[in-house]
């Protein structure tokens, strides 16, 4: 009899404990080809969760993060996803790469699991196709359009159009914005003279750079992560090319400066989440947390990105919890109530609707000047309906 009572108590206690705990999956790359930026992002998410739990949690409930390193391998991602949804019973997932996110999109939709990934692929913004996918930044396509707009502004020679080349990895992430870029070049009167495909890991980009030089490009947009961008920049410096380089938010941050050093001077890049320590109201909690827990670590904009993600989805969890609908569809509905949700300047205000998952279309462009990241200008691509999903 006592045993039975104990068993009942244990079951009740377990039920109570799980009611007080919100299970969230975290799929990160800590060891794979994008681990140069993946580690920073994962750390940001983990710290963000810890901070949220220390500061009231989700209306008193704690977040429990089930984080997995999938090494940027799609089969691992699929297995980890099955494990998180099937065994760990998570109600949403904070994901990472473009390839795995796009692979999982049908599965995510079938299981009704909101999937907020660090891939800004525009293919994930159309809720009629990917209702459960979200991200927190302008899309890769809008970023490239913004950078091309900057090229147009920067180009002073009226005798001819600026010539641009695209460098991208041979993967879903690298290729994601390229079609948008090609179309935008035509619209804007920019000559796309060269496209070079870079392997997943490479130590040398000389042959690609020589091709580009031969085709006379004035600007190059590098759509790979920090390590790759730094290789291209160093080789370009060695060859003494007169080309202005630009890069995406996973290739351009304080870390690029640390790796590429003087070769990074004059490089422009898309910085949708501010660099660490930037003077914006939302930064204080990050800096305080940093001083308290790991004062000796260095952080970058990608770490800030991890935080922003947690701030966005924890707000959605709070709203879903208030509506008493703390499950996949509830969190999705909560996210779709976001209207100009302010993140204290860490990133531009976020808006999702049931018909448009583009969180923002505003893209800030930064330049590295005198060893510092300096903001040049912010471009607003506006919500054109024909660009949804492209």
């Amino acid at each position: 009899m006592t045993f039975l009572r104990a068993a009942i108590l244990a079951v009740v206690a377990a039920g109570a404990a799980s009611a007080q705990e919100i299970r969230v999956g975290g799929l990160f790359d800590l060891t794979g080809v994008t681990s140069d930026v993946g580690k920073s992002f994962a750390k940001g998410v983990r710290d963000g969760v810890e901070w949220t739990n220390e500061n009231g949690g989700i209306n008193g409930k704690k977040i429990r993060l089930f984080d997995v390193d999938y090494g940027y391998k799609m089969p691992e991602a699929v297995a980890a996803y099955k494990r998180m949804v099937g065994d760990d019973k998570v109600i949403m997932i904070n994901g990472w790469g473009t390839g795995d996110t796009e692979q999982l999109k049908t599965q995510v939709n079938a299981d009704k699991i909101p999937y907020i990934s660090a891939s800004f692929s525009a293919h994930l913004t159309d809720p009629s196709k990917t209702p459960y996918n979200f991200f927190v930044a302008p899309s890769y396509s809008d970023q490239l359009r913004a950078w091309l707009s900057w090229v147009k502004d920067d180009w002073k020679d009226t005798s001819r159009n600026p010539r641009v080349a695209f460098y991208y990895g041979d993967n879903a992430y690298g290729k994601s914005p390229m079609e948008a870029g090609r179309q935008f070049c035509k619209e804007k009167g920019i000559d796309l003279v060269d496209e070079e495909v870079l392997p997943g890991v490479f130590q040398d980009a000389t042959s690609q750079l020589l091709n580009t030089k031969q085709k006379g490009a004035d600007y190059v947009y590098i759509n790979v992560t920090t390590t790759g961008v730094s290789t291209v920049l160093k080789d370009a410096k060695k060859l003494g090319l007169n080309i202005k380089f630009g890069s995406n938010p996973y290739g351009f941050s304080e870390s690029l400066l640390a790796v590429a050093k003087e070769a990074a001077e004059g490089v422009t890049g898309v910085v949708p989440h501010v660099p660490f320590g930037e003077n914006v109201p939302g930064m204080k909690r990050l800096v305080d947390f940093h001083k308290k827990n790991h004062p000796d670590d260095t952080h970058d904009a990608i770490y800030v990105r991890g935080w922003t993600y947690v701030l966005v989805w924890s707000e959605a969890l709070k709203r879903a919890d208030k509506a008493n609908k703390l499950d996949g569809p509830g969190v999705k509905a909560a996210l779709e109530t976001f209207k100009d949700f302010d993140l204290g300047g860490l990133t531009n205000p976020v808006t999702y609707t049931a018909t448009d998952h583009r969180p923002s279309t505003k893209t800030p462009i930064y330049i590295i000047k005198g060893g510092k990241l300096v903001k040049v200008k912010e471009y607003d691509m506006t919500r054109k309906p024909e660009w949804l999903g492209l």
Partner: protein
Amino acid sequence: MRCGDFRTTYAEDMAIFDSALARGLLAALLVLLVLLPLLATGYWLDVTNRIGIAVIAATGLNILTGFTGQISLGNAAFLAVGAYSTAALTARGVPFLIAVPSSGLISALVGMIFGFPSLRLKGLYLAIATLAAHFIVEFTVVHWESMTGGVNGIGIDPPKLFGYAFDEDRKLYFPILAATVAMLWFAKNLFRTRVGKAFVAIRDQDISAEVMGVAVFRHKLLSFAVSSFYVGVAGSLLAYQARIISPENFPLGVAIDQLGMIIIGGLGSILGSVLGAIFITLLPEALRLLTGALAGSFPGLVQLFASLKLGVFGLAIVLFLIFEPDGMAARWHRIKAYWKLYPFSY
């Protein structure tokens, strides 16, 4: 009490299971395997399904490398051919029961084409030639976008049999188990036939084999075909299980892993392919559970443990090669022999 193992007829000598006990244990194991989906949770069924697929692929590689002595690094490529054939066939409405063997046959054909260099090349040179197969197939898969979906991958509908959809791991477990058992049964029997024995003769000494009247080139090609058929079937099942396949499912690492499976399990042993495939598939899972448990008590070390996983994986393989170079199958036979003579082991 009979002490030792005495055979008095050729039939006894040829028997796969040499005692009623062995047959009984195998039957019990099969019953247990059939009942497994009732016991295991969702994710572990994914793992068991991956083990089944790995067993088929490793058996295929063992036929070529372990039994015929032709080293191959093209296994990931043949796996990809099988998987993409299935994707293409199912997209055109070909049913499950036909798609799987057809994918195997397509893969066998591709395997034979890349087996041609084996006429002239041996050892490391053949390994490099099959490595070329890997890169050619990878290139084709990435760039033939209309057929393969390129780097974004391609989706596969769940298999259907008589109107019943095998749309989750729990259901898919049964066709995979059936295929694995059938493929193992065939492989085990293959090496009791003339063809199988010709394979072994080629491995042991190809010139002597030729002198004895074995058509060496024909049998080498046949070995490539049978092996790639196995791997193609594994690829086909993998496509049905993963439901989405992309070039990233078939990196060179997969071919290396499979070589690892047959080396750790035992070259030239069907049992070895099974044990090796189980070991290599479960190793990362075991390490994950272990590091997961440790990371719980030392949260600051999550990053370190993630990398540690890879190091321990390599270490386990090296230790195996040092302490059990003949593979797990040899160890299993030693354990069996010990008990056969127990308690009079002298």
